[in-house]
């Protein structure tokens, strides 16, 4: 593992420092997606990253989530310099430290709700019996104890997203990253999902970073970071 580092801000979980991201660097089609981004996310906070399409907010989320490597700069995740880690080390960090919630839910359609939640724990080496117990508990927490044996195709969008949230919580992550988690849901269902995320933040203490372009979603966050053309343009 790379050397640990303490964030400047007290209780900071994630620090993004001088991050630049280029796509197709050196080619005619080069795009400078993130431009010298510096931001810190406090432990236990609920942060929304807002910006129009193409502003670089999802790329920033992917870099924070160790799915993408920055072209330059670094991300400290709980004190660990992730820019120095190999692909497999990043995968391990993702499994143990981060929980993802996607707009498209991204559940495995051939698995039941229970198996989808178990999957994340099994990948991270949890024994089957323990994984099953925790998956059952988490599905109960998100209000889906009656859906454990249903497959995603037998569930509504809201229910699928609840399964995805249960999966994101399964490995007791330090931070939950949401990429437009309500983007595919109607207002009422989306509101319920946001309530659930807010509850997890307030009652369970999870740090939540949520990408959205919906100002209503931004309103429930403790902190909002505005991004445009790859640069942070404001914070609330």
């Amino acid at each position, binding site marked *: 593992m790379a050397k640990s580092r303490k964030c400047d801000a007290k209780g900071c979980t994630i620090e993004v420092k001088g991050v630049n991201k280029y796509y197709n660097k050196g080619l005619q089609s080069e795009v400078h997606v993130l431009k010298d981004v510096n931001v810190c996310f406090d432990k236990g906070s609920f942060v929304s990253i807002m910006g129009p399409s193409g502003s670089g907010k999802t790329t920033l989320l992917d870099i924070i989530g160790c799915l993408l490597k920055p072209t330059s700069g670094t991300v400290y995740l709980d004190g660990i310099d992730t820019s120095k880690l190999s692909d497999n080390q990043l995968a391990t960090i993702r499994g143990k430290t981060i929980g993802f919630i996607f707009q498209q839910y991204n559940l495995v359609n051939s698995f039941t709700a229970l*198996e989808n939640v178990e999957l*994340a724990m099994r990948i*991270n080496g949890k024994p089957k019996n323990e994984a099953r117990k925790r998956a059952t508990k988490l599905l109960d927490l998100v209000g889906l104890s009656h859906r454990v044996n249903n497959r995603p195709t037998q569930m509504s969008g809201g229910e699928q997203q609840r399964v995805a949230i249960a999966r994101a919580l399964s490995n007791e992550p330090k931070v939950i990253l949401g990429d437009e988690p309500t983007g595919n849901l109607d207002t009422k269902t989306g509101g319920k999902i946001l309530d659930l995320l807010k509850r997890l933040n307030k009652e369970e203490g999870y740090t939540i970073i949520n990408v959205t372009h919906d100002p209503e979603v931004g309103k429930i966050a403790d902190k909002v970071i505005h991004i445009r053309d790859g640069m942070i343009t404001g914070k609330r």
Partner: protein
Amino acid sequence: MIDLAFKNVKREKSRTFLTVLGIVIGIGVIVALGSFAEGINVFFQSTLEFSAGKVTVQQRGAGGFQTGFSGSDITDEQVEAIKMLDGVKEVVPVNMYIEAGGIGFDIQMIVVGLDPSNSNVFVGDDIGLYSGRELEPGDSGYIVVGKDFADSRGLVIGDTVTLKDTGFEVIGIIEKSNNANVDSSAMITMSDMQDLLDTESYSLLYVIPEDIRDVETIADRIEDEDDSLSATTNKDFARTATDVVNRIRMFMFAMGGIAAVIGGLGVLNTMVMSVLERRKEIGVMKAIGATNYNVLFQILSESLIISLLGGVIGVLVGQIGAFVLVVVTEGAIPATVTPGLAATGILFAMALGAIGGIYPAWQAARVDPVQALRYE
């Protein structure tokens, strides 16, 4: 995680079934043909043991064992001349004929006539009787039969076997020797045989040397003495048999190998398709913590499960094929699936699974989770 691999294999049942079927056919062919080669090997080995330590003499150009040495006509004068040769301990004249059929592998009708005191030369020293008694000098109208011969005709002591319209009473059944030549034959005394065939000559001679190491020299001496005779030892036979068995083995493994490789291509095709269809799922797995090794292991496990299943069923199908071969050849070719052959079949299937699975597994391990999640 292996249980997830099983679950994924079961996901596309018909595709998995067809892929397994491809491996089953390939491995089944390898095992069935391999058992045939093993059977021929066993047959030759038993014949080799049968002719060990002695020289087999017949008329040059006459037929071999499977024809009852037809056309071989050795006289008493020739026997006496061989007895006079240096190093010859004993000469045992034998008459054989095929009662019916007897072409190809059907050696169940071979009737042997020899002096009862020398029956051990034909049967072997270690083989006793299953029931009844042995032929004795002076016996007439009696017959001793091999176990397979008796079983195939349901014979018991006291039954009558008719040869060329002459009835012979069964007085002895030889215990199972696993030598096809003995188990499938029937013995009568030389005098009965000569009466039956209306001849005073012999179809072959077994020449026992004083020193077992001199069999080759004795064989050369016999041919030098009488160029109308052909003298062979088990070394000559072993050379030919090994050559024949090796050629059959190579041919059969080549045929089976081609069939199995086609099955292996089926595994490759199935796994490539599976990985292409599951790119997003693989992306999700990587996003939630699966390392490249986890994904590689997962896909390779699925490929190995398919091939192992195909291998095991293929060995069973090959065993059925071997059984059919035994039935078709009426036991003449004891086609057997040895543990080594079964293990070869399963290991070959696993190797096909590993080779067929490694490329798709590598492809899967290289899936970029961001690309897979965003664009698939």
